[in-house]
């Protein structure tokens, strides 16, 4: 693995739970790994599987989706729709050779600032261990 590799993770966070949890982590000054870049969507149900594939195609080392806990969706059940698609996509991604740790769906409520840290740190650590996903980036980092 190239030395000093820092993964870049695209995160799709829902506006009402996980994005607010990340805001709360900020106001609570909780420190976590600087490897994620958040794209705000209104609901995890808005996350089109093509967004995820596109992120990987463009060189993301990991993709994290954050939504409200089951039963807590601001739009009643968008997170269930997200979960359904996620399970399918995960199967597809496996066939394409994508390592399990690179694609993750997490339920993080607006009150769980601490969980933003644990999830992101854990994911960054695991993806860092896997190394860069795209050969081009491998070269670039090396």
């Amino acid at each position, binding site marked *: 693995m190239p030395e000093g590799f820092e993964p870049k993770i695209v995160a799709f966070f829902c506006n009402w739970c996980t994005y607010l949890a990340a805001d709360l982590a900020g106001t609570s*000054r909780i420190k*976590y790994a*600087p490897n994620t870049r958040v794209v705000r969507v*209104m609901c995890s149900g808005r996350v089109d599987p093509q967004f995820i594939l596109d992120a990987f195609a463009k060189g993301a080392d990991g993709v994290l989706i954050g939504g409200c806990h089951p039963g807590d969706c601001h739009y009643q059940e968008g997170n269930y729709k997200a979960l359904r*698609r996620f399970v399918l996509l995960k199967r597809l991604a496996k066939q394409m050779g994508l390592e399990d740790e690179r694609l993750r769906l997490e339920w993080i409520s607006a009150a769980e600032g601490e969980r933003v840290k644990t999830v992101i740190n854990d994911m960054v650590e695991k993806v860092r261990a896997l190394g860069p996903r795209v050969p081009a980036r491998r070269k670039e980092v090396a």
Partner: protein
Amino acid sequence: MRASGASHGVAEESVRIGVYICHCGTNIAGTIDVYALTQYCGTLPGVAVAREYKYMCSDPGQELIRQDIRDHKLDRIVVAACSPHLHDKTFRNAVALADLNPYYFHMVNLREHDSWVHVDKLAALEKAMDLVRAAVRRVRWHVPLERRQVPIHSEVLVVGGGIAGIDAALTMANAGKHVYLVEREPTIGGHMAQFDKTFPTLDCAACILTPKMTAVKGHKNITLWTYSDVQQVEGYVGNYEVKVRRRPRYVIEDLCVGCMECIQACVFKQGKTFDEFNLGLSKRKPIYIPFPQAVPPVVVIDREACIEFKSGKCKKTCVEVCAERNAIDFQQQEEIRDIRVGAIILATGFEVFDATRIPYYGYGLYPNVYTSLEIERLVNASGPTGGEVVLRDGRKPETVGIAHCIGSRDSHTNKYCSRVCCMYSLKLAHLIKEKTGAEVYNFYIDMRAAGKAFEEFYNHVAEEGINFIRGKLADVYPEGNGGGRLILKAEDTLLGMIRKIPVDMLVLSAGLEPQADANEVRRLFNIGCSADGFFLERHPKLAPVNTFADGIYIAGCCQGPKDIPDTVAQSGAAAAQALALIDAGVVELEPNTAYVVAEACSGCKTCIPLCPYSAISYLDEKKAQINEVLCKGCGTCVAACPSGSIRQNLFEDQEIYAEIEGILTYA
């Protein structure tokens, strides 16, 4: 709503983007090199102006943007500052003031998501560059949008009839709005009605509360539904459709005058049922009124305890005595009432911590261990003992211990401070000493007397000869000699020694907890809870009574533990917010709705069952159509549409792809 003439799916080539980096004092600039960031932003394609400023949200900061829009003919704006949840609207308005469509704008969260959470300055700068670059690419795709305007119903729903709900209801009713006040107990009044005197002024709770309760009952603008609960909430800000269940009390409210002769006449000569209002310190009959000043002054029949309901063979002496008014109706059924309201105030209150959860304090095991709320009933002149503070065997206590922080400031139960216990413990100490002359010992961790005239009250009580032991009560056990007293063991941290104090009575100053069903209630109203389980406010400082659901406000202890003055202040604030909303007459909704591009729709109907709001209909010409008024803009249908013919304003596919590309491009 899309502005007329707005096209979709085209990124304008010749945009002139202005990028504004906020220092936020040192909040952002302390971690992120804002000068390097600004210089970098200036090199990005399409960026005409890139500036940094100390506080972008300040007046001069906003003016800077407006001036640049005019001088440099900017047509896209990116502000990199704090969370869009805080200042999205501020900057949209600033943009609009310069005659640019407010949706030609995007905000980057540099503070909450970057400078406040990272320590590595280089990594933070790199992240900031990625985020701003993503926004610059995204904003190219933006199209002008218009906010939808919908009318607001002027009626208001208040849930919970404690002091918070009562006060909010009266404030709005006095302003001429029609209020539905829904309370699940048979009477309004809440916990405050159970209290004796209130700290620090020692004015009697009933004397200040009951006039307000009566005012609710008599107000022409208030519809009071007790013994009722909210079953369903649909709709959106300004237009909530609510189903309220009115449980049968088996007494016709309009006919009962509250003479209570039926209670006298009941075949039960003595009450045998746990009296909820007195926390079981007395017994009530199956037909009862919670307390004499209950509002409405209407009796209730408890069908679990009533012989007529159990066997159908009661003599029904209650019906006989009520023959003239004929208010008792054993056939009464529950009713569902549908109402339409513009705003909702939740004032659902708290629950007292269940002291049996800490077994070593002996509550429920030793008869002379009481909770503070039970003592409130005992010292109350209208309570089960007529205001006599006596033990369960009728003796007067000579020594009393009061243990603070029961279920508060404790990692095993609740970490938070319940805020009211220190003060009500002082009040109870004063009242117990006044009534019994007993020696009173307070076991406390810290004395928290922050509030108007609170410290003075503490000094006053201390001067009366109440004993204070700084130390958490560690153990409670019966005295060895069989004298019936309890030994209270605690470390006196000021003396640095273990003390064992024998007492006749132990009072546990139980903390405040969220209602047991707070989670179900929050789901019903689509709001959130904070980590401690209380309802989550939109902003802890600047929007303390707002929630993330527009038009739904919170007041009182459902938001967190607080005393009566703070509760009333908050209910007033919630009422003011609701009034401001309603009096505007119309509400502007964010334009982030989904829409169907009819030419591309294949008519597959994938989207239709996905919509939780039934906003998608199927037209005769085999195309889907989205009702913009019903759509709340989650975007689930957009993600699911196989032909890509459903799009979402503000979250267009191209906008998100551009953002992803911006994040991952190493330019």
